[in-house]
C-alpha cells in the first residue's frame, strides 16, 4: 500500500450530504406515513406454530382461519415448507392453541402437530417500547458525555448525530419494507449503535492524533489523510462482521432473520456514515487545528516565536 497516496474522500462531501439527506428524508417520510410494522412483542397477540406432515397450504390455512372468525391473521412458513407460523391479534385464553388446531385439522388430511403457543401481552410491549426509546436516548447522552470528555465537544456532537443518522435509516429500512419489528430487531438496532459508534470513534481517534502532528493547515486534508489511513481497517472489520451476519442470516433460522437483516443494513450504513457522515459533520462544525492543540503554557509559546 502506498502510504503517501491520500484518497480525497471529502471531495464528494456534497454528494454524500445529498445522499444522506435523501435517505433520511425517505426514512422519516416512510416512518411518518407507514410507521413500523410492530411485531407481537409490541402489539400483543397470539403466535401459534404448527407442523404439517406434508407441504402446508398457506392459502388454505389463511382462509380456514378467517372463516373461523379470526381477524388479522398472518400465516407464514417458518424454517421449512411443513412448519407454519400463525400470528393474530387475539386476546389470551386457555386452550386457544388447541382450538386453532381443531379448525386446521378439520380441513387437513394428515396429522398436524402443535409445536408452540405463545401469547404476548400488549402492555408489556408498550412498556418495553418506551423503555427501549428512553434507554436509547440515555445511551446517546452518556456516549456523548464520554466522547466530549475524551475528545472534544465537536466530536461528541458529530458522533451522536452520525448515530442518529444510522438508526433513523435502519428504522426507515424496516418501515419501507414493512418487515416485522420485534424485540430482536430492537436489540439489533442497539447493536448497530454500538458498532457504528465503534467505527466512528476509530476514525475520530485518528483525526485527533493527526491534527497536531500533520503540517497540513486545511482541516479537510487532515480528515482525508485520517480516513485513508483507517480505510484498510474499516473495510476489514466491516468485512468480517458482514461475513458473520450473512452466515447468521442464512443459517440462523427464522427466529434470527430479523435480527441479522437489521444488523446487515446497520453495518453497511454504519460503515458509510463513519467515513462520510461523521467526518463531514465534523467539518461542518468547523473543526480546526486549535480545537485539538494541547493547551500550552503562554511562556512556551512566546519562546518559539521567531
Amino acid at each position, binding site marked *: *500500500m*502506498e*502510504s503517501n497516496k491520500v484518497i480525497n474522500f471529502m471531495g464528494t462531501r456534497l454528494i454524500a450530504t445529498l445522499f444522506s439527506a435523501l435517505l433520511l428524508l425517505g426514512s422519516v417520510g416512510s416512518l411518518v406515513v407507514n410507521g413500523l410494522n410492530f411485531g407481537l412483542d409490541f402489539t400483543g397477540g397470539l403466535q401459534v406454530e404448527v407442523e404439517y406432515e406434508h407441504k402446508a397450504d398457506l392459502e388454505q390455512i389463511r382462509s380456514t382461519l378467517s372463516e373461523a372468525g379470526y381477524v388479522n391473521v398472518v400465516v407464514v412458513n417458518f*424454517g421449512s415448507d411443513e412448519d407454519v407460523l400463525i400470528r393474530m391479534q387475539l*386476546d*389470551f385464553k*386457555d386452550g386457544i392453541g388447541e382450538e386453532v388446531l381443531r379448525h386446521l385439522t378439520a380441513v387437513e388430511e394428515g396429522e398436524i402437530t402443535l*409445536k*408452540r403457543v*405463545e*401469547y*404476548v*401481552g400488549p402492555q*408489556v410491549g408498550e*412498556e*418495553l417500547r418506551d*423503555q*427501549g426509546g428512553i*434507554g436509547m436516548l*440515555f*445511551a446517546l447522552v452518556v*456516549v456523548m458525555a*464520554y466522547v466530549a470528555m*475524551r475528545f472534544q465537544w465537536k466530536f461528541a456532537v458529530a458522533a451522536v448525530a452520525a448515530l442518529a443518522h444510522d438508526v433513523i435509516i435502519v428504522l426507515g429500512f424496516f418501515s419501507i419494507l414493512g418487515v416485522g419489528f420485534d*424485540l*430482536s430487531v430492537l*436489540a439489533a438496532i*442497539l*447493536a448497530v*449503535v*454500538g*458498532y457504528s*459508534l*465503534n*467505527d466512528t*470513534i*476509530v476514525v475520530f*481517534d*485518528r483525526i485527533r492524533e493527526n491534527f497536531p502532528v500533520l503540517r497540513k493547515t486545511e482541516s479537510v486534508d487532515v480528515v482525508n489523510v485520517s480516513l485513508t*489511513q*483507517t480505510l*484498510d*481497517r474499516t473495510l*476489514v*472489520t466491516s468485512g*468480517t*462482521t458482514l*461475513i*458473520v*451476519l450473512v*452466515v*447468521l442470516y442464512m*443459517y*440462523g*433460522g427464522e*427466529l*434470527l432473520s430479523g*435480527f*441479522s437483516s437489521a*444488523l446487515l443494513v446497520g453495518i453497511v450504513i454504519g460503515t458509510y456514515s463513519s467515513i462520510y457522515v461523521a467526518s463531514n459533520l465534523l467539518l461542518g462544525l468547523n473543526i480546526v487545528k486549535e480545537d485539538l492543540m494541547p493547551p500550552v503554557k503562554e511562556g512556551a509559546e512566546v519562546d518559539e516565536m521567531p
Partner: protein
Amino acid sequence: MLNRYPLWKNLLILAVIGLAFVFAMPNLYAPDPAVQISGESSAMELDQAVLDRATKALEEAGIEHFGETVNPKNALIRLHSSDDQLPAKRTIQRALGDSFVVALNMASTTPDWLRSLGAGPMKLGLDLSGGVHFLMEVDTASAIAKRQESSLTEFKSKLREERIRYVSVEFTEAGAIEGVFRSAEDRDAAAAIFRKEFQDLTRESVDNEDGTFTVKATFSETAIREIENYAVQQNLTTLRNRVNELGVSEPIVQRQGRNRIVVELPGVQDTAEAKRVIGKTANLEFRLEAKPSDLVTNKESFEFRSELDQRRFGNAELERALIISGDHVSGAQSSFDPETNQPQVNINLDSAGGTKMHRATRSNVGRRMGVLFIEYKTRLDRTTNAAGEEVVTPRQIVEKKVISLATIQSALGVQFRITGLDNVAEASELALLLRSGALAAPMYFVEERTIGPSLGAENIAVGVLSVQIAFALVLIFMLAYYKVFGIAANIALAVNVVLLAACMSMLGATLTLPGIAGIVLTVGMAVDANVLIFSRIKEELANGLPTQSAINAGYERAFTTILDANITTLIVAVILYAIGTGPVKGFAVTLSLGILTSMFTAIMVSRMIANFIYGGRNVKKVWI
C-alpha cells in the same frame, strides 16, 4: 528488549487461559434427560424403596434407564432419550401415586472433579431448553386499599377505646382518612392517636367554618411504595414456595419492574397444571357458627363448596368475626381419616394462631366451627374509552365458600385437622395452598409463552451451526489477509470464545438465542482490535520503522483507539442490560462480556503470540 513479555506476564496470561478452559469445559458435557421424583411436601423423605418402585415400573413399561440416585429430598432417574421422558414420567406417577411429584429434568453429566471446583455448564434460557414463561401482575392497588381499610377500622376502634366521640370517620375520594369532631380537644386527641399509632400517615388539622373540627390523614408516597413493595415481595416468596412444590429444576421467579413477577419453568410442558398451582389465590378463615340469637349485623351467610352439602344443609350462618385466617398456618399435610377413610388436611398453626384458636375454642366446645375457603378470581373487563380504544381492566372477584362445618370436640391448639373435603385431590391441593402461604395481593397473568423442547433443541442446533460456520470463515479470512499475524489473531479469537463461555458459566448467566447472536456478533467484531493493531503495524512499516519498533508501535498506539472504541460500545451494552428485559438483556450480557474478553485476548494474548514468533530476535521482514 522490545516485544518480549516478562516471564510473569506470560505465565499470568497462560494461567487465565488455562482457567478459562477448565471453567468452559462443563459445557461440553451434554446433560442426560431425566425424571425427578420428590415428595409432595418438603417434609417428606425419599428412600431406596421409593426408587425401587419407580425403576420397577419403568422396567415393566420397557423404558431404559440408568444412573439412579436418591437422597432424602429427591430421586433422579436418567434416561437415554428425551422421547422417553414423558412416558417415564407418566409411568412413575401412576406407580407412586399422588403423594409424589414427578417432574422432567435434565441431569448434569459434569465430572465430579470439575464440579468440586465450582464449575458448571451455562444455564440455557427457555428458548433453548423449552418450558413455560409467565408474567404476572400483582394488583398492588387492592393491597393498598386493603391496608387503608384496615387502618380506618383500627382508627375507629382506637377512638372508641379512648372514648373520643366523633361525628364521622370515613374515606375521602383522595384516599385519606377524614375524622370530623365536635370539639378541638377531641380532634387533637384523635390527631395524637394518628401520631402515635399511624406513623406512616401525614396529618393535617382543619378548623371548619361550621364549628366542627377535622383531622385528615393521608398515606405518603413513600408509605404507599412500601405497601406495594411488601405486597410484591410477599407474593414473590409465596410464588417461590409454590413453584418449588411443582418440583421443577432451576425455576426462575423474579420481580420485574414495580409490580410484575416473571416465572419461568424450564422443562415444564403442562401449562395448565403449572398455572393452576402458581396462579391460585386462596386463603382460609376459621369462624364460629353463628347462634340463632345473634344480631343480623354480626352474622354472614355462606354457601357450601360441595354441591352435595349445599343440597343437604343449605347455607351456613357464620359469625362475622374470625378466629384466625390462613396466614397463621405454618404447615399442612393431606392424609386420610383412619376411621372414616375420608380425605383430610392436618394443619399446624404458628404460636400466635395457636393461642387465638385455643382461646376461641376452649369456651365454645360443643359449638360448630366453619372453615371458609376464600378464592380470589380475576375477571378482565373490556370497555371502550373515549378515544375508541379498548381498555382491559382486571376486576377481582372474591368467592367465599364453606369447606367444613364441624363440632368442636375439645379445645384446639396448634395442631388440628379439617375434614369434609370432597376427594384426595382437593385435600392435597388445599394442603399445598396452605403450605405455600397466602398472597398479600391478588395476581393475574399478563403473558404466557410455551416453548417446546424440540424447538429448543432446534434453536441450539441452529445457533451452534451458525457460530461454527461464521467462526471458520473469519479464521480463514484473517489467515489469508494477515498471514503470520493472522495466526496470532485466530488463536486470540479462539481463546476469546472459550473465555466468553467460561465467564458466562462462572457468572451463571443464562444463554438465550439472542445471546448466541451476541456471541456470533462478538466473533465478528472481536477481530476489530487485532485489525486495528495489524493495520497500524503495516502503516508503521510503510513509514520505514524497523520491524521490532513497528510491531511495538502497532500494539502501543492502537491501544488508546481500542480503549475508546470499546468503552463507548460497552456503555451502550451496559445501558441495554440495565433497561432491557428478556431477549435484549440476554444479548447485552454476551455483548458486554464479549467486549471485555475480546479486549483482553486481542491486546494481551495476540501480543504474547506475536512476541513468541517475532520478539527479541533480529527480524528482517515481517510477513503481514
